[in-house]
């Protein structure tokens, strides 16, 4: 589904990703872990198309299409959605406008008509309830004045409504108390499906207790230096990253 090959990315002439390889197949759940500053958010940002990153080598394909050649919105419409590590506050844009516009953009891409208002509201209410958010969130500005946990729940709410083929969740667990972590995890788990892939960036094993991944990767200094199954996370939690980095250096 997603194929990242020998990806090299620089920010302001500093190389951040240094030949990164990653393959995600349909239905798989992957976790990417790694020290601060390793390049995890850079990878998500480049996949989503954020400005300011220079791709100096390699490729990213999504369902066979060259992602780097696509407009930001076309990536989303094709089913590639990024959940932000730091969700952006957008004063003056109501959550409900964003949800409706985003859903209709996707439907248009699929050749479907705009969703009818009652159907839309029913869908939104159902997903809000699932995320334990009350409907006042719809009429508040996107993320403005939301607590850290509310912002993350709002990211998952968008995922539940937009049903991406591949959800890329950057530190969706940071800043969550245990109850919010459960809600967010249930949201993500409800997305699990044979046709849908999920990539989570995280620092904590805790998240992986709730959302059990098929594969775990260690990203360090711009490269994936080790991959394994879920037991790798436990080992990392116990022993830290140094041994993996040393092992990779040999």
């Amino acid at each position, binding site marked *: 589904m997603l194929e990242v090959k020998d990806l090299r990315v620089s920010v302001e002439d500093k190389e951040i990703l240094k030949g990164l390889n990653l393959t995600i197949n349909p239905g798989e759940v992957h976790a990417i872990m790694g020290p601060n500053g390793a390049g995890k958010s850079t990878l998500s940002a480049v996949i989503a*198309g*954020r400005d300011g990153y220079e791709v100096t080598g390699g490729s990213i394909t999504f369902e066979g299409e060259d992602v780097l050649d696509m407009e*930001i*919105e076309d990536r*989303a419409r094709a089913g590639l959605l990024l959940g*932000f590590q730091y969700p952006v506050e957008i*004063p003056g844009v109501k959550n409900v406008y964003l949800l409706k516009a*985003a859903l209709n953009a996707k439907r248009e891409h699929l050749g479907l008509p705009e969703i009818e208002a009652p159907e839309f509201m029913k869908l939104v209410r159902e997903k809000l309830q699932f995320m334990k958010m009350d409907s006042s969130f719809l009429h508040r500005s996107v993320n403005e004045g939301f607590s850290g946990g509310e912002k993350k729940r709002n990211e998952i709410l968008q995922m539940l409504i937009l049903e991406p083929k591949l959800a890329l969740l950057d530190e969706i667990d940071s800043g969550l108390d245990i109850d919010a972590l459960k809600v967010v995890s249930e949201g993500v788990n409800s997305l699990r499906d044979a046709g849908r892939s999920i990539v989570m960036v995280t620092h904590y094993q805790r998240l992986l207790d709730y959302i059990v991944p098929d594969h775990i990767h260690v990203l360090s200094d711009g490269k994936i230096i080790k991959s394994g199954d879920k037991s790798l996370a436990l080992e990392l939690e116990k022993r830290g990253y140094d041994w993996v980095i040393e092992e990779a250096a040999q």
Partner: protein
Amino acid sequence: MSLAEFTDQWLSAVTPQISEGPGWLTDLRQGAVEQFAVLGLPHARLENWKYTDVKALAKRNFSLPGTANASADVESLVNKSSLGLDAIRLVFVDGVFSESASTLGDLPAGVQVLPLAKNANAAKPVLGQVAAANFSGFTALNLAGWQDGVLIDLAANAVLEQPVYLQFVATEQENPVLVQPRILIKAGTHAQATIVEHYAGVEEAANLTNVVTEVDLADGANITHYKLQQESAKQYHIASMHIQQKRDSRFTSHNVCLGGKLARQDIQVELSGEGAEVNLNGLYLGNGRQHLDNHTLVNHNAPHTNSNEDYKGILNDRSRGVFNGRAVVHKDAQKIEAHQSNANLLLSDKAEIDTKPELEIYADDVKCSHGSTTGQLDENALFALRSRGLGEEMARGLLTLAFANEVIDRIEIPAVHDRLEDAVAGRLPEKFNLKGLV
């Protein structure tokens, strides 16, 4: 050709009005005629009129409106352009009060809402007390020749729960007309009211509205004023509003300027008692070749007075905006807070803004801020919206609407808020594709 050449023509246009009404009024009008003869229409050499040229307007021959047009067409126009709020409603068609379209209802004790033409004598203690006839040529012209309007008189402690909705409707006339309303608001000690001045009409209307509003707030009075200008793109709209504030009074103005070929709004506030506070909230949105000018002046005449001003402008096509916000802190007026900001979005290369926030401070214990920006949309927010699949234009459209909403969201009457948000969304460029979304 100078503007002075047109002075006589303008005076003869208002002459029939001068002898209307009681003797004291004729005297007052006569005095204003003399002032207009000296001032004429404002010319571009005046600092306050530097960016707004009224020559094209001056050359036009406007005639006086006749009696209120009461045809079925007008009735449906009045209903169509109504904001539809639950209010004490006074309708004026081309400046003439329409009794049949208005609903005065039962007013609480101590409140008077009087159409002015029929009740001129009631206005005697109020008329011209706050607005100086020589504020500009247009102010003098209005005093000389106002045709109708309203007096809203609130006795001490009177609280008007329902807003007063003043609906001005412009129709198409064979000869464009000069519409001169006068609005007088007098709030006694601790009185409270909300007043909505709304200007709209048919697309072909090409008249001149020249309105003067006077607001007198006694100690502790609290007035919220909405000015919603949605006239046609052929109308000329000149307005000045003058506010006198006593101790602990509060005046809040929401001034939304969407219409007019040329629109000029002046707001002058005198904070003359300790604890007086004024909030000036404004939005202008220009399309085509619209010229929209807002000039505000706040005089801090007393200590412990506060002013907050936030004006935002969106200018598209070849439209031009002018903003001049002046706050003056007079000597001995200590412990003042005066904040002012003006932000603009230019949606096209050919759109223009001339903005000038001015602070003049003659006291030393003051807290002031002012600034103006002409900016771009937030790139992070644009990315966040596009990353959810919204097209770039729609993302820009939503952020532009959000910019306007910072002003609109302060509007506390839901019906007015929603109508305006729709109106603004509807006036933003088609390519933003906001229809059906908002």
